[in-house]
């Protein structure tokens, strides 16, 4: 998550949205956790099952969705900034 936060300033101006999707249903705990964890991107709370619909099996995971609403890539676990940058380049290149 910190790696994605760092990439927001570069990729949001290029039209990419970043959303932290919490599996914790309590908004107060989510806000507190976001503050502790340094999450500043928009936060959503999952309603019901989201792992299977988003084609991931574990948390944390990152899901890359194109502008047509198609899940292009999913990555499980933590990754470094260069990994996310490669995926973002791939995602935006496939848009063209």
């Amino acid at each position, binding site marked *: *998550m910190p790696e*994605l936060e760092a990439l927001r300033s570069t*990729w949001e101006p290029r*039209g*990419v*949205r*970043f*959303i*932290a*999707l*919490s*599996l*914790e249903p309590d*908004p107060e*705990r*989510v*806000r*507190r*956790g*976001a503050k*502790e*964890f340094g*999450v500043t*991107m*928009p*936060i*959503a*709370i*999952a*309603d*019901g099952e*989201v*792992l299977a*619909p*988003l*084609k*991931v099996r574990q*948390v*944390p995971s*990152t*899901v*890359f*969705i*194109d*502008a*047509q*609403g*198609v*899940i*292009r*890539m*999913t*990555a499980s676990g933590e990754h470094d900034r260069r*990994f996310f940058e*490669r*995926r*973002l380049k791939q*995602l*935006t290149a496939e*848009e063209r």
Partner: protein
Amino acid sequence: MVSQWDEVTTRRRKAHAAFPDHHTGRLALVLALDGFAYLGANGVVQQALLGLPEWGTGATIAGPMRSPAVASPRLWPLLTVLSLSAACDVYDRPNERVPQHFQSTMVADGSRLDASVLVGAPTVLALWVPK
């Protein structure tokens, strides 16, 4: 007293690559970030380890080189594949539309985040659970 392990470990720190050890007659071969193996002078694997231990681990082992933990040269292809796979990006490509039953709620304003909202701009969803 400086053991063979001390020597090999010290040299490995300096080289980080394949190099001959003239004092011991052995060759330490670093396998692409993910393991290393010690070869005897005759080219037979003396010891191969997966995953790089903390620096200095070898130095704590005194005396002559121990019996091999993984010693078969038949394992070389496996070690090579594992080493190469560690250097690759691992991710899935589902290429499937976000299903209609995916539902979530934005914390800031309580608005819906569903498949229809995810159309229009590329989106990165970071799934997490606050501690």
